[in-house]
């Protein structure tokens, strides 16, 4: 059996490496992380060669330890030791790309150089002499076009052949034939270094190690463990070179490498004279896109497009999300273009499906309200066990004639309020039901969706009916439908908006615009300790915090990336919007600005939090330089954008499924059982485990104005998924019958505080600005790359949310005349400390 061949794919950023990788591996890819760092690690199987693994290295410019990417790449190349290197090179910028190639060649591994974008090179009228380059760099050179899927496979297959041959002919202990690129005295010093380290390194890579020692690369010198006397001897040689050439060792190597490449290019590259110094199309586009006045409006316009796509009403993201949540995952939907008004004879004839549902909801509400009133009347004065619980077949006409159910309404699912009148949005639609109206209402049957078009049942409906058919009991049904499926559906329901955002971002990244955004925004965001690239995560955060945190990956500067991860989720996400909508409807009808203010508060936290963090020891230090290559604009391929999108989406789905699913089952369990494992009815929630757990931690919320088990339970369950705060609140505030769940919530806040509006505001802000849901927290931990930083982020977010709620409630109560207490003093002191953290002098200044 033949051993598998491991090939490293290496090249500059923007050289088409990912495109080539996708083209030669097809769908067999595995995405993970390099150990210990948040740099994406991708490998795949070469198409048609089960025994060949392609390891995609991050895009790098050099093998010096400048960035995490470079460290990761060189550690892989020199320590794990691939069998061969596939070096992709941008043919339109070959001089700069060869800087990395010369270093790769020094590793002494079989190497094929795939010169990419040959179609563009030809179109430009330039000529590259592959023969000469191959002879000089001692490797094979092949022209390819990754975008058009030309030549990539041939290059890879040629390399496999070379690697297999090399294994037979020479092992790692053979001196390789590598190019000598430096001037006499430097080569002399390198030869000396090679001599002193020859027992410590694999011989084939000895030249690479020697050059690194010459450059005084600390990591390598430490690893080789060269003796003090030996090192002193080497140091003398290096100093001689530095003296002779009047530069430091590292600069000498860089310069001479480029000089060597220049000589090679003089012989092998013929540029089309007509093109020299002219502006490319890309330059012309940049004249507008990075223009000092136009840059910002163009950027804002692209934000608007994304906004529309992802979260705007009637935008594709929202339409898809609504479809997924309300139809696909729930009851079902009508196939597009088949929906029509009801044609069947009967009560609904001529009505559209939605109208029919609306009518039935009202009839159903009338029916159950009247039945309830009737049963109450019948049961009046009867002993507990003599009470009738279900409607009898025969209704007592005499009693029935006297029954009128007052103020019947249909409840809005989102806000918990009675649905408003059709002609007046401010007035709830209430009506009375007498016996005649009841009899009429009882005749209506639920509209059959298949009478309104081609009906496709939703996943939720299918599960329910499958369980009913299987004849399972109600407990199991509730566990599966409300507990398990509810959790999974939450995760799946967010996929459309995340998909749309990821797709749009992948498009912007692949076409080259994202690099410009970073360039434009860097000036502004630098002041808050962030980077130009921090803007994108915050934007994504409006839709969902999970992809927002993941999008922070693109930020190279570690401090700025960490800060972005900590701050991005303060932008109220889609799930938090559900909380805002409910509280705005229940408590702030006259204060319309409260809902909009939440976005402003989020942005203020980001700015002020950024300023304060930047002044701490952990984030201090000016990242004063900004250097970024702007790739030429080009039309991305659909398959490229798709790969990009799917790789990110896959991660989200797996993570969310693994975290949310068990959490929802657990929540269902503690809501429906007491400590003795007795199943509880909905009204018995005060006996539940959840009640006790909530009671134990309720004191934590006392300073915030909602220190009751209900407030605690709702806030903690919101960590599973933020919109759970509203759902739990509805379930735990059961009380007086005959009013909407919205009224229950209003009564609840009135019962626990003399200032119910402030307590409600405090509860809402606490849930908006404490750490995001547990999926986002899990992703935060992963992206931070260490437990310590993960906890730091959570602690910071917890602090901000708690202090905000505390201040809003206690200072609000103070201004409303509710008096001064110990917690008011604490609130003022903490606020003063926060202000000091923002305005004080920074660390080390």
């Amino acid at each position, binding site marked *: 059996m033949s051993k598998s061949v491991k090939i490293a794919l290496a090249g500059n950023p923007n050289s088409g490496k990912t495109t080539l990788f996708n083209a030669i591996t097809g769908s067999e890819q595995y995405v993970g992380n390099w150990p210990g760092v948040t740099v994406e690690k991708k490998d795949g199987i070469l198409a048609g060669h089960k025994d060949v693994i392609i390891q995609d290295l991050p895009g790098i410019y050099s093998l010096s330890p400048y960035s995490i990417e470079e460290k990761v790449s060189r550690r892989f190349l020199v320590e794990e030791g691939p069998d061969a290197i596939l070096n992709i090179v941008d043919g339109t910028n070959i001089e700069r790309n060869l800087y990395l190639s010369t270093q790769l060649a020094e590793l002494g591994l079989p190497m094929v150089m795939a010169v990419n974008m040959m179609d563009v090179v030809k179109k430009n009228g330039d000529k590259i002499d592959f023969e000469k380059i191959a002879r000089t760099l001692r490797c094979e050179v092949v022209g390819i076009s990754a975008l058009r899927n030309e030549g990539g496979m041939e290059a890879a297959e040629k390399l496999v052949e070379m690697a297999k041959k090399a294994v037979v002919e020479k092992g790692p202990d053979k001196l390789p034939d590598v190019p000598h690129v430096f001037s006499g005295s430097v080569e002399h010093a390198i030869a000396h270094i090679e001599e002193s380290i020859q027992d410590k390194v694999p011989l084939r890579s000895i030249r690479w190690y020697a050059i690194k020692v010459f450059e005084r690369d600390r990591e390598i010198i430490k690893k080789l463990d060269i003796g003090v006397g030996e090192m002193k001897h080497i140091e003398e040689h290096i100093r001689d070179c530095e003296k002779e050439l009047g530069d430091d060792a590292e600069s000498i190597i860089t310069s001479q490498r480029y000089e060597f490449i220049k000589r090679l290019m003089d012989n092998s590259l013929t540029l089309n004279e007509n093109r020299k110094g002219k502006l490319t199309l890309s330059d012309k586009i940049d*004249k507008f896109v990075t223009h*000092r006045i136009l840059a910002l409006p163009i950027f804002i316009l692209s934000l608007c497009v994304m906004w529309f796509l992802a979260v705007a009403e009637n935008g594709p993201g929202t339409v898809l999300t609504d479809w997924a949540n309300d139809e696909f995952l729930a009851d079902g939907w009508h196939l597009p273009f088949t929906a029509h008004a009801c044609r069947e004879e009967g009560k609904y004839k001529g009505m559209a499906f939605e109208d029919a549902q609306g009518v039935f909801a009202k009839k159903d509400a009338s029916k159950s309200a009247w039945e309830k009133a009737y049963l109450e009347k019948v049961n009046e004065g009867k002993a507990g066990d003599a009470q009738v619980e279900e409607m009898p077949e025969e209704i007592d006409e005499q009693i029935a004639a006297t029954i009128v159910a007052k103020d019947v309404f249909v409840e809005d699912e989102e806000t918990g309020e009675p649905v408003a009148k059709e002609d007046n949005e401010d007035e709830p639609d209430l009506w009375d039901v007498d016996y005649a109206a009841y009899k009429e209402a009882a005749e209506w049957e639920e509209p059959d969706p298949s009478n309104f078009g081609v009906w496709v049942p939703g996943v939720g409906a299918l599960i329910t009916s499958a369980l009913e058919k299987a004849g399972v009991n109600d407990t199991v049904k509730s566990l599966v439908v409300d507990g398990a499926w509810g959790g999974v559906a939450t995760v799946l329901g967010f996929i459309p908006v995340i998909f749309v955002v990821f797709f749009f971002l992948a498009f912007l990244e692949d076409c080259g615009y994202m690099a410009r955004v970073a360039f434009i925004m860097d*000036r502004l965001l630098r002041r808050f300790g962030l980077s130009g690239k921090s803007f994108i995560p915050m934007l994504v955060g409006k839709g969902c915090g999970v992809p927002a945190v993941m999008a922070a990956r693109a930020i190279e500067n570690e401090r700025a990336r960490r800060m972005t991860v900590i701050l991005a989720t303060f932008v109220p996400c889609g799930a938090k919007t559900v909380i805002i909508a409910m509280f705005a409807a229940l408590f702030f009808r006259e204060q319309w600005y409260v809902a909009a203010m939440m976005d402003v508060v989020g942005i203020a936290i980001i700015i002020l939090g950024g300023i304060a963090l930047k002044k701490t020891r952990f984030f201090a230090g000016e990242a004063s330089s900004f250097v970024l290559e*702007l790739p030429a604009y080009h039309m991305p391929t659909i398959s490229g954008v798709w790969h990009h999108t799917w790789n990110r989406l896959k991660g989200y789905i797996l993570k969310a499924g693994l975290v949310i699913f068990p959490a929802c089952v657990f929540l269902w369990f503690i809501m429906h059982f007491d400590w003795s494992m007795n199943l509880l009815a909905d009204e018995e929630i005060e006996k539940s485990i959840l009640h006790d757990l909530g009671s134990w931690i309720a004191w934590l919320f006392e300073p915030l104005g909602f220190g009751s088990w209900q407030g605690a339970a709702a806030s903690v369950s919101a960590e599973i998924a933020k919109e759970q705060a509203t759902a739990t609140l509805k379930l735990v505030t059961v009380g007086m019958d005959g009013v909407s769940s919205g009224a229950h919530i209003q009564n609840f806040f009135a019962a626990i505080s003399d200032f119910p509006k402030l307590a409600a505001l405090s509860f809402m802000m606490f849930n908006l600005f404490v750490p995001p849901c547990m999926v986002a927290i899990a992703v935060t931990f992963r992206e931070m790359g260490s437990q310590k930083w993960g906890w730091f982020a959570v602690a910071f977010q917890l602090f901000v949310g708690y202090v905000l709620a505390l201040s809003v409630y206690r200072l609000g109560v103070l201004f409303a005349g509710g008096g001064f207490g110990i917690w008011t003093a604490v609130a003022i002191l903490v606020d003063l400390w926060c202000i000091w953290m923002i305005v004080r002098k920074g660390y080390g200044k």
Partner: protein
Amino acid sequence: MKLAEMKEGDRARIVRVTGEEPVKRHLGALGFIAGTIVRVVGESYGNMILAVHESRIAVNDATAQNVEVANV
């Protein structure tokens, strides 16, 4: 002359790169070394887009202050 003083459309030869070691090393890998010709393709509030070899590199004001150039 500092690179930061150049105007849009100007060409110059790099004489020396100063500043923090890691940034200098990164600039070197990108081709910012003594002798290389750079051209200012765009400029906005002191931040620049430069043509080096065949690529476009964006640098901010502070970085452009660390690159010494001479007229060609």
